[in-house]
Each structure stands twice: as C-alpha cells, then as structure tokens.
C-alpha cells in the first residue's frame, strides 16, 4: 500500500511551497552570543510563520569538540536508532553520544528522539574510499537520510549545530534551551508552509556539513535545479527549495571551489543586459559562470542566509521579490526579513540597508577570531 494512504503525506512525499521569516546576527570579532538575541528577533515576525516549523543554526557552539563533526539526528523510534547507530559505528569513530537537552513546553509536542554525536571518520575507511573527510561525512548523511526510514540527520558540521522543530521559532528556541549556547553567528527561520506535514526534519535551517541555509521564498526553478544537482550524488529527499539551495551551495563552494561572490553570481546571476555593461574582465567571468552553470540559476522569489564556518552570506533573488534588510552596530551585523527583527536584537542598529536583487552581502569573522 502506498504509505501516503495510511497517514498524512510526509515531507518529501509532496512538494510544499512556503513563505517565511529569516534573521541572522554575526559578531565580526568572533565574540560569542547566547541564543536569546536571535530568539527575540523572531518574535515580531510571528505573522510570517504559522507554527509549522522553526529553527536556528549556531556557529562556534562546540569549541571543546571543534575537530569533530557534530551529527544531530531525529529518530522516529528506538529501533531505527539502534539500526542507525550500528551503521554509524561501522563508518565513524563516535567520541560522544548524547540526547540533546530540551525543555518541555506546551507549544512543542510530538518530539522525536533527538540525539547528538561527535564523530570523526575512520582513517582506514577514508583511505580505502579515497575521499576527504568532508566528502565522506556528506555521503554518510545522504545515506542515512535516504536509506534509514525514520532517521534523519539535520546537522552535520564541525563546531556548529542546527536546532529545529515543528512550532513557532521563538518556542523552538526555548525548547532547545538556546540561551545555554554561545555562538559567534546565529541564523533563524520561521516557516509558513502551505500544508501540514508536521515533520521535524522539514523545518529549517537546512544543513549539509557546516553550511546551513535559511530561506524565505518559493523558487520557480526548483526542478531544473534539482535534476541538475542530483547528477552529482545529491538526493533531494524533502522536495523543498531550501534543501536544493543547500546542495547547490555545497556543490559550487566545496566541489567546484567557487568563491562566495562567484556562487552568488551563479544562483542569482545578473541579467545579460547587466553583464553587457560590465568591464571586460568581469563581463567575461560573469558570462562564463552563466554559461557553465545555467541549471543552477535560481528564479522566483527568495531571500536566503547562507551560514558557514566563519561567516554569513545574505542574498536576494535577482528581482528582489522578497524583503530583506541588513543593519550594523559595533562589530555586529544583523540581517532579517524585516527591520523590526533587527531592532528587536539591537534597538540602536545603524546603517539599515536593503540589498538589491542579486547583491550578495558577505560578512566574515575576523581571521583567527573563531
């Protein structure tokens, strides 16, 4: 029997467009901030979510395990957990395994088992597969997410973590006790999906290795992007825009070695007419990138914040069909769907600015400060 006949369709079995709220903060000096600020940012944007998904990503939160990949996994049952852990042990050395601490809240229910593992690939396995540790861990994540029904890896980077759930983001933040973590950058997401899968894995941020994406929008290029990226070993199991954007970022940055600016000019490529007005060398590069990666151009409305070790990149679609503003105060840079969210984090934020369509805002922590 088709599984969708027994229960409501789960994320990945139907395509779910959604509207959203996003926010982020980063300290350029690498100062660690508790999760309270970013939770506050989401409160004034409650109208942009509908309680069907919220989440956060924090960078620099596991300094004591900075050399280990932190896997955050949802399990539907103890049985699948046992099965999955057997597999994990066969591929990785697990140096710590624990339940992620949460706090009971009436607003957050039906939680799965939420486990956290600090792991490192076995050298012998790496050598025999002739891949580096990032590629190996990415493959482990793909494998669990496609082969183990009821297990889902939702965070897999070093010294960073994703925390997400079905609920309003401010409740999700409290649920995960984010005030107890210190991060040099935070991103956050509140989701407004157009139907109700009610599955925790479907909430955002979406992550692969240390790259996370929070995204507001519905991309019209989805299937063109998906069918292209799946040629390179990625499996889009969730049918969500954010998932495919995360894989695109991973492919362009990690596998193709593009810079962030170059990545931005692939996924939000300038119009040909704009390219024609650029100086010769820049024009050649932009034409080249559009010619080489035409299937990774993302169209339709989006505002995204890409988080990575040591920085953030904010980007709008090339027509700017979704709101997004940035602000500054001291060494902090704030990004959000609405200025109100920035003001909630920092009432005296300065230089409020709305980046134009396709204009990448890249903020990095000072070298060596994280």
């Amino acid at each position: 029997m088709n599984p969708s006949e027994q229960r409501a369709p789960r994320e990945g079995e139907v395509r779910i467009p959604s509207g959203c709220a996003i926010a982020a903060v980063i300290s350029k000096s690498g100062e660690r901030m508790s999760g309270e600020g970013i939770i506050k940012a989401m409160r004034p944007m409650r109208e942009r979510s509908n309680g069907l998904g919220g989440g956060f990503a924090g960078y620099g939160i596991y300094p004591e395990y900075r050399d280990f990949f932190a896997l955050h996994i949802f399990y539907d049952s103890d049985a699948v957990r046992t099965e999955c852990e057997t597999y994990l042990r066969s591929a990785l050395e697990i140096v710590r395994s624990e339940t992620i601490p949460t706090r009971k809240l009436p607003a957050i229910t039906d939680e799965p088992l939420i486990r956290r593992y600090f792991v490192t690939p076995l050298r012998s396995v790496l050598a025999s597969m002739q891949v580096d540790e990032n590629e190996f861990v990415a493959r482990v994540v793909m494998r669990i997410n496609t082969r183990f029904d009821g297990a889902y890896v939702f965070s897999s980077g070093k010294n960073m973590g994703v925390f997400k759930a079905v609920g309003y983001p401010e409740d999700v933040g409290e649920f995960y006790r984010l005030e107890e973590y210190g991060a040099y950058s935070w991103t956050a997401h509140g989701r407004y999906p157009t139907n109700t899968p009610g599955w925790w894995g479907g909430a955002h941020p979406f992550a692969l290795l240390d790259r996370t994406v929070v995204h507001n929008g519905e991309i019209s290029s989805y299937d063109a992007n998906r069918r292209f990226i799946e040629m390179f070993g990625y499996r889009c199991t969730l049918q969500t825009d954010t998932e495919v954007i995360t894989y695109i970022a991973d492919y362009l940055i990690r596998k193709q070695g593009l810079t962030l600016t170059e990545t931005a000019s692939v996924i939000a490529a300038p119009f040909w007419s704009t390219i024609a007005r650029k100086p010769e060398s820049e024009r050649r590069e932009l034409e080249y990138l559009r010619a080489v990666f035409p299937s990774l151009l993302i169209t339709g409305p989006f505002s995204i914040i890409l988080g990575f070790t040591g920085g953030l990149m904010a980007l709008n679609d090339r027509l700017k069909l979704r709101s997004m503003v940035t602000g500054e105060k001291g060494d902090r840079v704030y990004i959000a769907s609405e200025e109100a969210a920035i003001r909630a984090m920092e009432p005296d934020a300065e230089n409020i600015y709305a980046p134009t369509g396709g204009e990448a805002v890249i903020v990095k922590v000072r070298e060596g400060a994280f």
Partner: protein
Amino acid sequence: MGIQWNYPEFEVVRNDSRCIRCQVCARQCANEVHRYEAEIDAMISDESRCVNCQRCVSLCPTRALKIVKSDCRLRENANWNQDAIREIYKQAESGGVLLSSMGNPKPYPVYWDKILMNASQVTNPSIDPLREPMETRVSLGKKPSKVERDENGRLKCELSPQIQLSMPVMFSAMSYGSISYNAHLSLARAASELGVCWNTGEGGLHQDFYQYGAHTIVQVASGRFGVHKQYLEAGAAVEIKMGQGAKPGIGGHLPGAKVGPDVSRTRMIPEGSDAISPAPHHDIYSIEDLRQLVYSLKEATAYQKPVIVKVAAVHNIAAIASGIARSGADIIAIDGFRGGTGAAPTRIRDSVGIPIELALAAVDRRLRDEGIRNNVSLVVGGSVRSSADVVKAIALGADACYIATAAVLALGCHLCRTCQSGKCNWGIATQRPDLVKRLNPDIGSQRLINLMTAWNHEIKELMGGMGINSIEALRGNRLMLRGIGLNEKELQILGISHAGE
C-alpha cells in the same frame, strides 16, 4: 481512356457568378488543373491533377474558388480505409514504392497536446515580461565539468565552442535542391536578423549565402554533397546528419531534374544527375567510427566549431544519445517521427521511429542518470508547431528546438504534401525558375522574423506566468508540466505527474 482506378481526391468548386475569367488560376497552377476555353468563355478544371495546395484559392481576386475533399467514396470499411485501398491501386499500377512528403499525417498521439503547463498563484508571483527582464538567450555546446583557475586564482574563462542563440529555436535542415534559392535566402536572412541559426541541409551552401555564415549550421550527410574546407569553416557549427525523423534508416534522393546549374555547383555533382545519399554513412558503421568523423571535422575546423550529431528518434534512442554524448559531439539533435521531408517512402515516414516528446524525455533522463548531461546540448525537432510546444520541450529537458515545417508554412507552404513533384506553386520546394520567383525573399524573411518574434513573446509570457525569468531555469523543469489523459507508463517515460497530482 482506360480504367481510372482512383477517383480524384479533391474537387475544384468554382462559383461561376463570381469568376471574372481573369485566368490567374490557370497561370498560377503548375499542376495545370485550370484552363480557359475561349470558345465557351469558361474556366475548365481537371481535378485529377489537383494537390490542394490552395494557390489558386489564395490568388483568386473574387474568391470564386474553393477546393473541397471529393465526396465520391468507396464503400466504407473500418479496416480497409480509403487510403489503404487507393494505395493498393497505385502500387498495382506502378509497381513502385509509394512516396510522400512532409511529416507523418497519421493520427498517432501528439504528446505535446497531452501536456499542460503551470502558472504561479499566491505562493510566488508571476512575472510580467512587459515590465521585467525576461531572458530567452541560449548557449549551445559542451560545458566543463570542473571550473579551472589560473596561477593568480582567476577563473579561466575559455569554453569549448558554443552557438549563441537569442531564443531557443533554430531553423532545421532543408537542403538547397529540396527547397529553392529564395527559400534558403529567406531562412538565412531571417536567422541572421533574429540572432538564431538556420541549417543548410545536406546540399551544400550556395556561394551567395556565405555572408550569412555566422548564423548558418553547415550539414555533413552521408552523400557528403557540397562539403569542402571553406564550407565547413563558413558555418557557426557543423552538423553530422546520421538520420532524419521522417525517414530513419534510409538516405535521400534528389532527382536529376532538380539538379540545375546552381544546385549542381553547390552540391559539386554533374548537372542533371541524381543526388543519392546512402542510407548509412559508409565510414560510420559503429559509434567509434562516429567519434572519428566528429574529430575529423573538429580537426578540419581547428576546434573552432561545435559539432552537432543529428539522429532520428528510434526505439533505442537513449542509449544511442549516451554513446553520442561520449563521442566528442557538442550537441545532439534528435528528430521525431513526425518531422517533415521533401520526399520519403510513405511506409517509412508513417510507421518508423518514435514521437520526439518520448525520445527527448528518455534521452534527457538517461544523460542525467549517467551524469553526462553537461557534455552536450540537446536540440529537438519533428514536430514543434508552436511556442507552447517549445516551452514544453524545454521543460522536458531540451536546450533548444529545431523547426522546419513551421518555417515553410510561414513562407507560404500549405502542406499539400507533394514536395516530391518539384512543382511547388509557392516557390519553396521547387527549382523551376518561374515558380521560385514567386517566393519573395524580402517578404519571406520578414514573415519568418514575425513568426519567431511572436513565438518569443509567447515564450516569455508562458515563462513569466510560471514565475521564471530565464530560460535556463525552465530547462528540464518537469515540475512545471502535468499530463492529461496519459497512462502511468507514458507519465513515467515523460517524467511528469498527472494533472491534479
């Protein structure tokens, strides 16, 4: 007069009260249907010669004429239909292979008509192409699998040779010989002005048209007619024609009657001699031989021109395309079984090959499954009838479309399907100077430009409705398509969901 086995297919209906005896019909009809009898001051018709090309109808100043299907019928029989019986009579008389022209007219499924497109509602905005930029520019050719940088870390921006198109439509191959000088000139001029490409077909490139080289695809077919160094160098790309949708598995035959001085010079064959293209290329009996020809042509053109390999859509097309994608070809052109032709054996045209929609879907999927979709661009034709077909083709996975029947229709063709007679009253599929001059290349090229411009507007409207503002984001975007009235297997092959899913 002996037995007339086949009663004429059409009737010429003349409204005598409107006819002014101007005799334009008689002068215009190369088939000599109409004649004026001075003694009785009347126009007489011999409908047995009529092919229903509508030339007389279109030129009659008083609309006194119409051509209708004859209602003289054989006894109805669902198995032995009229055509089946008529063809038996013809062959019993001639002992010959039946010949036909233009695309397969049989009522096979047209999948384009069973596919519906999407539009944005609420969750994302549609885009108005009159107010926002909407990009239809396409670049065809191999794309690198890995970007490279120089010693300073800057991107190395060299790409293998590409064809740039202002919109994802090109004019497909029709040889000089099968169509007229003025038809070629109209296509060449229109393609140049539009920023797309036209295609010489296998008959070489007339010396007058080398000036349009930057927008010309020069074809190399099994007869190698008109192929020489300057010819290869003249084009924007070189196309190896392995097959044609209308007649997969067989070659071509241009009768000597059509090989006048100009065609003779262009094809590099003696005047009046039949130009026979063999069924296979006799230097290509396998995929590795194709690779050699691809690289021979690249050597001959100093690796400056992309090489297209054109094949007919046949049963095993996905595997064939995969082989071609690994053969060094830059572009694969696939021609569906409804594609047109200047002449083909009827049995082959009507019953060999598969629909382009299914072939395209299968090839695009196979190339992606094998991770080599970037090695080649995909161009599809046979038959693409409208901008909606183009958009559906792109969403199924094509980079661009080839059109030929639509282009000759714009030039005046009325699809009478008798190109093989060489008496085209519209000046297209003929070499008779008196007929050729009826096609004015100024008007012809303008009509082609109008058609393409109209299609491009429509493509932009359809894209905008889907919230897509660049053709790249449409390519292979099958989520934008839904099937209507298709069974599970068809949906699976097309890789689309059913409407309502």
